[in-house]
């Protein structure tokens, strides 16, 4: 026991953004392109310093549009690549995020959320980009959006973002927030599994957009990559709407068919009369609130969603079917509560709890709201 403990790295104080950068390095990220923005900049600063030492490439681009474009280019040149930003930069990235989805490009986009819209409250925390992360691009797309609720989680979920991006050949968005990005916790970095890019077993008859196998430029088969709707061969098929819809549905179904996509934590939901459905930094306060509520005689439970999109409808419907009230605290004016309501469809009573003033919910706020929700209120305020 002692020997095992001494063999592992001693815990150290790590900042959320630093944990994100370390997770990226652990996942095998060899390319980062970014643009400075609060509260995400330390991710870029850490990687600017550390990527050269592992032979990776770092570049500070002229804007966020250039940053994500360079990341996608690097992915096609064979790199595991990432960028990180916050709301305004995330908005600028949307068109090219759509390009990454359309072209099946594995890459990771971290959005450390701050309060918006526009320049908003640049140093204050938010969960306002939940819908933008899903619907910010024009058109439909297969979306994979993850969250984290602790510094250790940031490390693990960054690795998971890379893993899922490789497994499904998609851009994966990791939503952090200003608080989590700048928070420091004394942690030991956990062991993680790393998934690598799947190369085709044979180049004979290989079609670059048929499945999960990915072949970069210069590896033996000439590749055509385009944001136009295209066939599995890469040949543009910009007037073939049926093919475009088929390709789109196939990408979305592949993600939703993977049970490994729907990451979540449940706590004390078995006998719960009230379940708090929370994600990101809010799940942390919700967890404390559950303990508090139990002590006060309310049978409370927690469903923490680590994957927001694709939305885990089946899971939420099941949890809702076994409880009376679903309290949904969010640091926005009601975003994830919309698919929650759709999934619950009348079984449990869904009560949103919202604030968009850049301030976190305390466990007390959530516990107080839970008591009010139990009295039959449809809306509660912190």
């Amino acid at each position, binding site marked *: 026991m002692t020997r095992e403990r001494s063999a592992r790295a001693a815990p150290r104080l790590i900042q959320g953004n630093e944990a994100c950068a370390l997770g990226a390095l652990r996942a095998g990220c060899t390319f980062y392109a970014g643009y400075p923005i609060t509260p995400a900049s330390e991710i870029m600063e850490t990687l600017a310093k550390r990527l*050269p030492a592992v032979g990776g490439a770092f570049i500070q681009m*002229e804007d966020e549009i250039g940053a994500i474009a360079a990341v*996608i*280019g690097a992915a*096609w040149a064979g790199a595991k690549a990432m960028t990180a930003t916050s709301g305004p930069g995330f908005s600028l990235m949307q068109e090219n995020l759509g390009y990454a989805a359309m072209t099946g490009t594995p890459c990771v986009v971290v959005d450390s959320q701050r309060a918006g819209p526009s320049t908003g409250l640049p140093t204050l925390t938010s969960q306002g980009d939940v819908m933008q992360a899903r619907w910010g691009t024009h058109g439909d797309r297969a979306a994979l959006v993850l969250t984290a609720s602790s510094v250790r989680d940031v490390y693990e979920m960054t690795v998971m973002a890379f893993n899922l991006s490789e497994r499904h050949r998609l851009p994966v968005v990791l939503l952090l927030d200003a608080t989590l990005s700048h928070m420091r916790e004394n942690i030991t970095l956990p062991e993680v599994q790393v998934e690598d890019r799947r190369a085709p077993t044979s180049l004979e008859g290989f079609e670059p957009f048929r499945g999960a196998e990915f072949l970069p430029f210069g590896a033996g088969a*000439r590749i055509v990559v*385009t944001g136009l709707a295209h066939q599995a061969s890469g040949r*543009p098929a910009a007037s073939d709407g049926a093919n475009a819809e088929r390709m789109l549905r196939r990408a979305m179904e592949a993600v939703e068919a993977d049970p490994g996509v729907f990451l979540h934590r449940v706590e004390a939901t078995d006998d719960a009369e009230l379940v708090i459905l929370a994600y990101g930094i809010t799940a942390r306060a919700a967890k404390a609130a559950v303990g508090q509520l139990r002590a006060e005689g309310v049978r409370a439970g927690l469903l923490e969603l680590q994957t927001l999109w694709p939305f885990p409808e089946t899971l939420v419907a099941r949890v809702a079917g076994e409880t009376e009230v679903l309290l949904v605290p969010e640091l926005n004016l009601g975003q994830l509560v919309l698919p929650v309501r759709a999934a619950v469809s009348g079984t449990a009573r869904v009560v949103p709890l919202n604030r968009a003033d850049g301030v976190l919910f305390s466990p007390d706020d959530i516990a107080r709201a839970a008591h009010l929700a139990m009295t039959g209120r449809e809306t509660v305020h912190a």
Partner: protein
Amino acid sequence: MPKTGQDLRKYLRVEMMPNVWCPGCGHGNISRAVATAMDSMSLDPDQVVLVGGIGCAGRTPFYMNTHAMHTTHGRALAYATGVKLATPSLTVIAVLGDGDALAIGGNHFLHACRRNIDITAVVYNNGIYGMTGGQVAPTTPEGFRSATTTLGNIEPPFDIVNLALAAGATYVARTTTFDVREMPAMIEAAIRHRGFSVVEILTQCPTYYGRLNRLGDASQMLDYERDITVPLVELTRDEVARGLPIGVFRDEAKPEYVDRYRALVERAVRGDDA
């Protein structure tokens, strides 16, 4: 012009043809020159990436039997930067329209010049937005007509060469589709150049630019290109007003971005700390 017997099929993706370009469009001539340059250099097409943006010129990568990246409007150079920095052994050529390069993509153009990254930008300058129906471009001369300047353009145009020179590109040249014989050598020199190279090529758009400005058919537009330009070598200091100069404006060796980054990586791997 290709050497006698020069077979360009190795560099052309014939199965993607016919192309989208209108009859009389100059883009095919430029694309042929790009293929000719690659052939003269005996480039392995599997180690070449052509990156295009959106618009008529941006379609070029589809017709070249290299790797093709048809990206988003204006962003080709940013994509190309990622490709080149991640895998420097690849030869990266960006094919851009004038609107793609200088309006929506102007910022990336300036910064690619400034960085001096080893990418060749071939700017197909037809002075108009062709694919969307002939709207004014940042290169349309004053007074010229387009679908959005029916009373004549009141905005001064960018001079692509001067812009590239000022922003720091280390190989800068301009030619026209009239000078089709000289074009491949100029593009070849640009690809061979270690650093960011810009080749601006004036090309005819008879469908919109020619028709809206009564410049005649494609053949007459080629004569027009000849008439409005003057080879740089013929120009004396006092004659700058005689026409738009064409030729090689800059060809200088300066530290290239990826080389500099690699030197930095070597220092970091050795553990030298600044």
